[in-house]
């Protein structure tokens, strides 16, 4: 029972958000090319971390510095295992994960690389990320980041934000990229889809004796062009619901 993946699938900042919002406890093992990191999480908070190198597992960083190193990694695999025994571990991390993510961003000497699902364009719709009540208040943002944040709730997309703030589009995109990367802003889901009329197909064949074949016949029967359609009755849907409840 574990959450497993790579930083291609999910960033470390995303993992920290999951830990926080889900109040998770356990051990996160991060495996890079030559180094390995371990982060201990208790009730959603990062409490300790260790970075080790080589086969002799020499400790190179501990605590917040270990987390800040791991936040710079772009290619690694991870496994998070639930483990309540972490509560007995000494706490060597004082800041929360938002602060650490922003600090890692400040120390960064290369442009940020977002994952595929986080790609930002001027048409991207944004929303403020939900932060838990336990998040610290002392998050330091620069002026551009504040200007973007102030417009998110009242603007349709990044194009509007750029126009409202007078910020050049490339600066707006870069700033939003930073805010998304540290988990303060989310890419909003698409709006509600237009409603559709649901129809039920009526197969023209008789039900065969063997249930398995009935399904196959239904499948092929429904695919045939001569199958008519009628509007689904609310009564039929309710009958299905009643049957499922009784199962």
């Amino acid at each position: 029972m574990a959450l497993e993946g790579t930083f291609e699938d999910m960033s470390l900042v995303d993992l920290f958000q999951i830990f926080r919002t889900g109040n998770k406890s356990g051990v996160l093992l991060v495996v890079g090319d030559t180094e390995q990191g371990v982060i201990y999480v208790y009730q959603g908070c990062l409490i300790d971390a260790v970075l080790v190198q080589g086969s002799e597992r020499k400790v190179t960083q501990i605590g917040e510095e270990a987390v800040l190193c791991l936040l710079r990694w772009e290619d690694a695999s991870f496994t998070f295992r639930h483990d309540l025994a972490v509560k007995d571990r000494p706490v060597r991390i004082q800041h929360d994960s938002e602060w650490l993510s922003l600090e890692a961003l400040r120390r960064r000497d290369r442009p940020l690389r977002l994952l595929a699902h986080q790609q930002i364009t001027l048409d991207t719709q944004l929303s403020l990320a939900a932060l838990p009540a336990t998040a610290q208040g002392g998050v330091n943002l620069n002026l551009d980041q504040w200007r973007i944040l102030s417009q998110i709730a009242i603007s349709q997309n990044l194009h509007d934000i750029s126009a409202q703030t007078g910020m050049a589009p490339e600066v707006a995109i870069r700033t939003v990229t930073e805010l998304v990367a540290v988990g303060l802003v989310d890419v909003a889901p698409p709006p509600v889809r237009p409603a559709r009329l649901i129809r039920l197909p009526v197969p023209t064949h008789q039900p065969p004796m063997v249930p398995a074949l009935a399904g196959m016949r239904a499948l092929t029967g429904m695919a045939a062009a001569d199958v008519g359609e009628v509007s689904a009755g609310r009564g039929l849907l309710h009958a299905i619901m009643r049957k499922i409840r009784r199962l």
Partner: protein
Amino acid sequence: MQAIKIVVTGAYAAGKTSFIRAVSEIDMVSTEYDVTNPDELAIKTETTVALDFGMIAINDESTLYLFGTPGQSRFDFMWEILSLGCIGYVVLVDSCRPAHLNETAALMAAFATHTSAPFIVAANKQDDPTALPVSYIRKRLHVPYDVPVVPCIGNDRESVKSVLLSLLAHIEQSFSSG
């Protein structure tokens, strides 16, 4: 006899076979074969190569059929056939494998080209304490606000019933607004 079809789809090893098996009234017709691909073998030892099929008799006149799509991409051609005539579908996603999210997003986009039937997303393996929360899965899959994303435990009958009831309620809502 009226045949009503619901499709259960999802990426490789999302738990589709278990989902259908949990509620089917017949011994489920499944086409499981040993996995031979080394990458896939790391995830599970048997896989569905054609389709899973389950059945629930509603009354003397109507039967609900549950069809599970094969998860392997080389069987994608089956999706169009399976989606024809379905009243709705469930997109199942493994909450403990973030790699599934990108695959599932692509699958949802592809499936939407075959059918405009209503669908819901079921976040499977929510009994695992490390599972990604439903809200994160909604965010990552960019699920529209009007489409339910519900928790699921694919091998638990009550949980699967709850997912199917959510889908049916969503279908009814779509029907009403249509």
